[in-house]
């Protein structure tokens, strides 16, 4: 077993689709938000919308880390990139995302040293190789990624690496979901929660969604069979609770070692989300004890007041209040080759998914 192909079995997926059709109440609407960008991409890639009953509506949520990173962060990264002797290392998608006035890709073309990394460990390696350079890693991502970046800082401290730092833009899921639920501008009855975030944090931090806001929730894997099973579990759920579909990965309490690592390095911080604004305690900043590795303190980047592109609907799309088809820039002025907004850049972005697999989504317009 490879734990991938088995969960893409067409025959089983169609069987579950039949179960869903049998389980739904035809007089009832099911508005399900798939929170994670990887879920969004999988739903489109495998054409799952086409095999679901019409009263199941899937709404894409704010779970694409590149998409929700605000212009201010990108502007700061560019300011640091243009400083002397600095090499910026970042996860690939980030490089193309437009900031207020430019992008890291354009700054690279202009001479800044910006490189793509698969892991924070690549940045550590580079720092060891180039003691004369300052290596700055762009720490973005949710609880899945944050422990890996935290661990890179622990290693840097242990190995007395002085030329490595992180520009911290990590965000946390539960707080922003509470903001969305409270906002009320989008009707969501149930959530398909991101399995890889819960691999780290477990179930408990989402408890409020079912207890206080009476939302049905299933923590889901990312293969098509996983997501179909999650939808079936949501439809069958009698009273709101947090269920786990992704049992082959998730422990109820998450990964305590990774949680400790995150808590040792980061502290909660009010964080700005593209389109959603500042959400209390929804981000991480580097603790004072690791302050020498905080690129913000080390380089103190000065930026002009960040500005958003008014012709970009990313903000509405991330909240689920509009779809890419509602955006005047979609597929015209804004394409993956020439993106106006972050949601078109990221491999997990909703606009990128609609653009790439659009024919599957026409019925959902």
């Amino acid at each position, binding site marked *: *077993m*490879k*734990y*991938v192909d*088995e*969960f893409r079995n067409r025959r*089983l997926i169609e*069987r*579950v689709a039949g*179960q869903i059709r049998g389980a739904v109440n035809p007089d009832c609407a099911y508005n399900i938000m798939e929170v*994670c*960008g*990887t879920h969004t991409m999988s739903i489109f890639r495998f054409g799952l919308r086409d095999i679901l009953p019409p009263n199941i509506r899937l709404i894409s949520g704010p*779970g*694409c*880390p*590149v998409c929700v990173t605000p212009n201010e962060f990108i502007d700061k990264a560019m300011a640091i990139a243009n400083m002397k002797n600095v090499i910026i290392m970042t*996860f690939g*998608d980030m490089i193309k995302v437009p900031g207020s006035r430019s992008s890291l890709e354009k700054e690279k073309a202009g001479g800044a040293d910006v490189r793509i990394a*698969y*892991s*924070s*460990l*690549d940045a550590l390696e580079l720092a060891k190789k180039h003691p004369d350079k300052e290596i700055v890693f762009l720490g*973005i*991502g*949710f609880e*899945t*990624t944050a*422990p*890996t970046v935290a*661990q890179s800082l622990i290693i840097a401290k242990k190995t007395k690496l002085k030329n490595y730092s992180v520009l911290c833009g990590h965000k946390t899921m539960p707080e922003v979901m509470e903001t969305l639920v409270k906002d009320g501008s989008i009707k969501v009855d149930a959530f398909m929660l*991101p399995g*890889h*975030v819960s*691999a*780290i944090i477990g179930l408990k931090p989402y408890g409020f969604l079912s207890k206080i806001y009476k939302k049905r929730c299933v923590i889901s894997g*990312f293969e098509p*069979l996983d997501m179909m*099973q999650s939808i079936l579990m949501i439809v069958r759920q009698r009273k709101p609770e947090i269920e786990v579909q992704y*049992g*082959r*990965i*998730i*422990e109820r309490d998450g*990964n305590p*070692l*990774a949680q400790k*690592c995150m808590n040792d390095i980061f502290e909660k911080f009010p964080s700005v989300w593209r389109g959603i604004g500042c959400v209390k305690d929804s981000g991480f900043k580097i603790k004072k004890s690791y302050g020498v590795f905080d690129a913000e303190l080390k380089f103190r980047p000065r930026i002009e007041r960040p500005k958003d592109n008014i012709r970009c609907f990313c903000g509405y799309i991330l909240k689920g209040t509009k779809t890419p088809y509602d955006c005047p820039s979609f597929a015209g002025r804004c394409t993956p080759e020439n993106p106006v907004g972050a949601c078109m850049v*990221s491999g*997990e972005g909703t606009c990128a998914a609609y653009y790439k697999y659009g024919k599957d989504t026409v019925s959902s317009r």
Partner: protein
Amino acid sequence: MCLAVPMKIVEINGNEGFVESSGLKRKANFSLLKNPKVGEYVLLHAGFAIERVKAKEAQKTLRMFESI
């Protein structure tokens, strides 16, 4: 970004080692996992093994769908 891939541990040296899937071998860091063992499947994200894959649970799910 939250993409994580199940891969099999083939070598461990301290906190580091190698994982493999479909002939692709990758370096991995195991510092976020308690007592990793060669032969186990782990979820690899950004160079780190972040959790184990539980074979029994995976088989249980698949068996359940086969029996529908």
